[in-house]
C-alpha cells in the first residue's frame, strides 16, 4: 500500500544542516494498522508528512497504491491526497468558523460531488463516530474528544484507503484517548482502512498490528 525507499530528509539553513530522516525503508500493507513511536524530534511527524505527500523527501522514493508520487505536481498531489489519504492531527485543525457538518464536508468540496451527496456522506461519517447529534455545533462548543471525532469523520468522509494520524490521542485524557483509539480500530477492522499512527503512548501502540520505532531519523525497529 505504502512503500518508502531510501527516504532521506535534510533541513538546511545557512549555518546548520539537520538530518531528520536517514535511509528509511518501509512497506505498509493494505488493511494494516501501524504505529510509529520514538522520542521527540526523531522524525516521526516528518515521516508521516512524507507518507501523506504533505512534504517531499530530500531523496528517496514514495510509492502509494503502486503509484510513484515523486513526479506529481502540486495539482496532482492535491487530487491524489484528496482521493487516497485522510489526515488526523493532534490539535484537530478544525476550521473554527465552520460548524461540524461543514468541517466534515471539506474534503468533498474538492471533488465533483453534489451538495446533497456531500451532506449525506458527512452525516454518515458523523454517525460512524457517534456525533450525529452535533451537526450544527461549532468546534468551540465541543470537548477535545468530540473535536477529534469530528476530525476523524472528516478524514473518513471521502472514503480514503489510508488514514494518517499524527498523535490523535496526544491532547486527550486516557478515557477519551481510548474512545478515539477504538474508533480507529473499528475503522481498520470494518472498513479495511490502512492506518499509520504516530504516538507517544506505548499502550495505544500495542493495540496496533505493528510498531515502528525511530531514533535520530533512523528506523530501529
Amino acid at each position, binding site marked *: 500500500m505504502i512503500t518508502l525507499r531510501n527516504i532521506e530528509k535534510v533541513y538546511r539553513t545557512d549555518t546548520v544542516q539537520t538530518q531528520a530522516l536517514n535511509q528509511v525503508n518501509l512497506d505498509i500493507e493494505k488493511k494494516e494498522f501501524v504505529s510509529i513511536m520514538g522520542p521527540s524530534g526523531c522524525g516521526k511527524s516528518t515521516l508521516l508528512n512524507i507518507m501523506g505527500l504533505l512534504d517531499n523527501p530530500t531523496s528517496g522514493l514514495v510509492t502509494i497504491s503502486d503509484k510513484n508520487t515523486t513526479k506529481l505536481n502540486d495539482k496532482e498531489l492535491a487530487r491524489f*491526497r484528496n482521493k487516497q489519504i*485522510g489526515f488526523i492531527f493532534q490539535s484537530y485543525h478544525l476550521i473554527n468558523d465552520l460548524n461540524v457538518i461543514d468541517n466534515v464536508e471539506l474534503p468533498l468540496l474538492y471533488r465533483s460531488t453534489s451538495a446533497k451527496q456531500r451532506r449525506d456522506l458527512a452525516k454518515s461519517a458523523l454517525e460512524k463516530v457517534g456525533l450525529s447529534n452535533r451537526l450544527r455545533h461549532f468546534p468551540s462548543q465541543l470537548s477535545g474528544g468530540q473535536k477529534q471525532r469530528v476530525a476523524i469523520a472528516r478524514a473518513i468522509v471521502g472514503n480514503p484507503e489510508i488514514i494518517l494520524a499524527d498523535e490523535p490521542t496526544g491532547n486527550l485524557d486516557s478515557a477519551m484517548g481510548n474512545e478515539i483509539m477504538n474508533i480507529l480500530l473499528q475503522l481498520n477492522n470494518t472498513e479495511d482502512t490502512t492506518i499509520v499512527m504516530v504516538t507517544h503512548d506505548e499502550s495505544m501502540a500495542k493495540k496496533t498490528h505493528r510498531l515502528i520505532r525511530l531514533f535520530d531519523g533512523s528506523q530501529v525497529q
Partner: protein
Amino acid sequence: MLKNYFKIAIAVLRRRKFFTFISLFGISFTLTILIVLAAFINNIARSAYPDKKRDRSLYVMLMDQRSEKNGRNSGPPSFYFLDHYVGSMKTPEKISIASMFNATNTYINNKKLVINVKYTNDAFWDVMEFDFVEGKPYITQQIKNADKVTVITRDTRDSYFGEGVSAVGKYIETDNETYRVIGVVEDVPVTMLYAYGDMYLPYTLSKRDYLSKELNSNYTAVLLAKSAADLDQMKSEYQDVVSKVPVKGKEFDKLYSHADTYVASYTRILLGDGMESGIGKMFLILSLVAFLFMLLPTINLVNINTSRIMERSSEIGVRKAFGASSGTLVLQFITENIILTFLGGIIGLLLSWGIIFYINQSNLIPNIHLTIDFGVVFLGVLCCLVFGFLSGVYPAWRMSRLHVVTALKAN
C-alpha cells in the same frame, strides 16, 4: 463551494470586527466619494432643466486673443462678437446670447438680498426651455425699446415679494434700478452657467456697453442646430466665422474661439489651450484621481489580508492537506475578498444615496438635483469588483505559496 466560501467570508468578517470595520469603511467611503463625484459630473454634463436640448447645441464661452508682443487676453466673448459675427451664421436655428451672471444687491426690510443678474437676448428663451410659473419672457420689441422688464426666478420672487405671492406686474429694485416683473420661472442651479441667474434682463439694459467692438467681454452663446447631425457643420461654420474676424493691425494677431459641446466648453477653459478642448486631459485626470482613490483602500486591504494569512494558516494547511490545490485556494481568497468589497460596495451605495438625498433636500447647493443613475451604479459595482480582485490577488498568491506543513505547524 461558493456557499462554503460565503460562510467562511462572513464568519471571518464577524470574528475580526475591527478589521472588518476598517476594511468596509475604506471601501464604502471611497466608493461614496466616487459616486457622489460622479453624480456631480453627471449633473453638470447631462441635459437638464432648462438646458434640455444639449444634444443639438454647441456652446461658446471663450475668446482667446494672443500676440507675441502683448501676450494673451482670454475670457468670455463680447456681445458684439456674438451678435455681429456669430449671429451671421446660417446653420444654427437659434443663437442664445447671455451674459455671465453679475451679483447685484437689494434690500428688503433692511436685509440684504444678493440677486444674480443675467442679460440675454430673446432667443435665450427659445433655446432654453424654462418653466414659467407665471407670466412670459420679454420679446424682441421690448429688448429693442430697452424696456425695463425682467423675468425672475421663483426663489427671487419668494424672497423679494413673499412666498407664493404673484409678482407679474409688480416692480423689483436692485442696484438702484427698478424693473417690472413680466415673468417668473422655476429656479436653475448655479452649476448651469449658461442658464443660471436669479433675474433675467434684456441685454440692452446692460450697464456695460454692449455695442463696444471689443472681442472680449462677459457674454456666452448657445448655438442651437436643427438636428444633432448639423453639429459638425455648425462647428466648422463657426471656425469660418472666427477666421474672418479682422485682427490685423490690432493689439492681438491671433484669435482662438470654438463652438464646443457642453462639457468641452468647460474643459477648454480649465485644461485646454488655443486648439485643444482639454476633454482628453479631463478624462485622464478624472481617471487618475479615481484610480488613486481606489488604490488607497486596495493597499489597505492588501495589508490586512496579508496579515490575516498567518492567522488562517491552520485552515490553509487543512484545506491543502485535504485536496485543495494552490489555485483553488487563490480562488477562495479572491472570492472572499470580492464578497467583502461587495458588502462595502452596498454600504457605499447606500451612503451615496443618503448623501445625495441630503444634498438635494438640504438645498446645500441651491436648486441642484443630483441622481444616482444606472451608469453610476454600474461604475460602483465595477469598482467593487476591481477592488476585490486587486486586493485579493497578492495576499492569495502569498497564501497559496505557504507550505502545507509550515501552515499546519504555525497554528
